[in-house]
């Protein structure tokens, strides 16, 4: 299936309230999916025999600061059976009190485990129902999220953002 057919199939199944208009760039399509439906969409992508996306390349975050909603979570998937790739993303935001939250897709692709742990610590996104939500690359005591756009490149003499106070 080519990118357009995959997009159409998703649109037929879930409708316009879940799937936003696709963006195509250099033959690759990116579909934006409603964040609260991410599990259902991913399950369908994996289990539908014509799609059969059995391989998750990565989960990553993008910080669109200062735009709203702030974060995008990217899922790059591949079907080894049909040899096609696709990309979906979900937009989520954080509030003063609540961190940005999205369901973990660990139950669908086990490899999401480390990818989500990395994305969580780098952006401060919470993956709901993740089986092992520890930090992966950063020290446990860090409270900052280095891949956010407002994370400084250099500390000052008084203020080092990476160390606990």
């Amino acid at each position, binding site marked *: 299936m080519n990118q357009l057919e995959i997009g159409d199939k998703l649109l037929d199944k879930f409708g316009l309230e879940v799937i936003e208009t696709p*963006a195509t760039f250099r033959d690759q399509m990116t579909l934006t999916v409603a964040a609260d439906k991410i599990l259902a969409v991913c399950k369908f992508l994996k289990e539908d025999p014509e799609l059969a996306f*059995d391989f998750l390349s990565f989960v*990553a975050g993008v910080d669109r600061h200062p735009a709203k909603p702030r974060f995008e979570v990217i899922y*790059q998937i591949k079907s*080894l059976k049909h040899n096609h*790739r696709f990309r979906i993303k979900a937009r989520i935001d954080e509030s003063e009190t609540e961190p940005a939250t999205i369901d973990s897709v660990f139950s669908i692709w086990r*490899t999401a485990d480390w990818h989500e742990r990395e994305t969580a610590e780098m952006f401060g996104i919470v993956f709901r129902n993740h089986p092992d939500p520890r*930090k992966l*690359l950063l020290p446990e005591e860090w409270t900052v999220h280095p891949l956010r756009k407002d*994370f400084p490149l250099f500390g000052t003499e008084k203020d080092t953002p990476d160390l606990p106070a």
Partner: protein
Amino acid sequence: MPENATLKEDRRSEVIELNLGPHHPSTHGVFRAIVELDGEMVLDVVPYLGYLHRGYEKTCENKRYHQVIPLAERCDYMGASSNSLCFCLCVEKILEVEVPERAQVIRVMMAELSRIFSHLFWLGTHGHDVGAMTPLFYMLREREEIMNLFELTAGGRLMPNYLRIGGLIRDLEEGFVDRLRAFTNHFDRRVDEYETLLTKNPIYMDRTQGIGVLPLADAIALGASGPMVRGSGLQWDIRKSEPYCGYESYDFDIPVQSGCDVYARYLVRVQEMRESNRILKQAVERLPEGSVRAVKPGVIFPPQEEIYHKMEALIHHFMLVVEGVKPPEGEYYQVIESPRGEMGCYLVSDGGPQPYRLKWRAPAFVNLECLALMSRGQFFADLIAILSSIDIVLAEVDR
């Protein structure tokens, strides 16, 4: 003696936690794992990563596009040219640049040389990890030849830094092709030599057969790629399934083994070296004449000679250095088959001179996720063999 027997049972039930690393010689870098042991049996392995985390992705977001290339090569220093190839292909796709035929063939040469380079060093150190000292010295001999080739044409030995967005930094050095041809002519016999050391070696076979079993369904679920899945019976190579750099026009096979164990991964990698050599031979024969860098003023750097003689070239060069190239807004995911598997570069451009977001899909990082599954129920000594069969490069795992 019943008393002693109970004592033994007590000891057996006691689970100990053993810290492995971060400076254990078998980890080939700084990798730490907490191993839960019941006697000598591994119950669980919990990896602790990040000792080599350098903030690669964050750094790239704050560099010009052409400045990312040397950083990318430092991600996987064993297959350096694969990294820069992946990044350059991705940017070229976004910029819609066609790379000249000659540069494509030379890129294939560099990529395949780095694959052999990486597999050679893997084979040497892997042999070392399971107690075979000899292979390493043989591997270093051929590895040195490849490093000399890199040095001849690019200057750098470990990290050639030879690829550029739109082509290569300069044409091949005189004499490179002849030396490469000489290398390809004797390399097959060298691989035969390596095989005499390990392939039928009963000690090696005992240490690796049936060890670290990774069933195919688990390999796919855990996102493993490259020799890891090919050792588990899946015939999947990105050079064939999603060809780049004209790989579709080369004649080569994908080695597959169905053993799912350390030995199968060994066989796959040895065979891959032969196939890479086959590709190299074809590349040497077909190397066409022509330029090695695309021409697209204001986007691709002009050749060095032109900067000295042409005003426009000087201006374009100056502007590219000062302002950088500004690709159109969009996102693209480029994959290549690196020595370790699916290496991917996901690039988001916002139209500015720096990547808005660069996500590096490092195959070693994902393959390492399989470690716990493969090691449960194995002996501790086999854990070392299993870890080395993944072929991790810690710089790539931690980025």
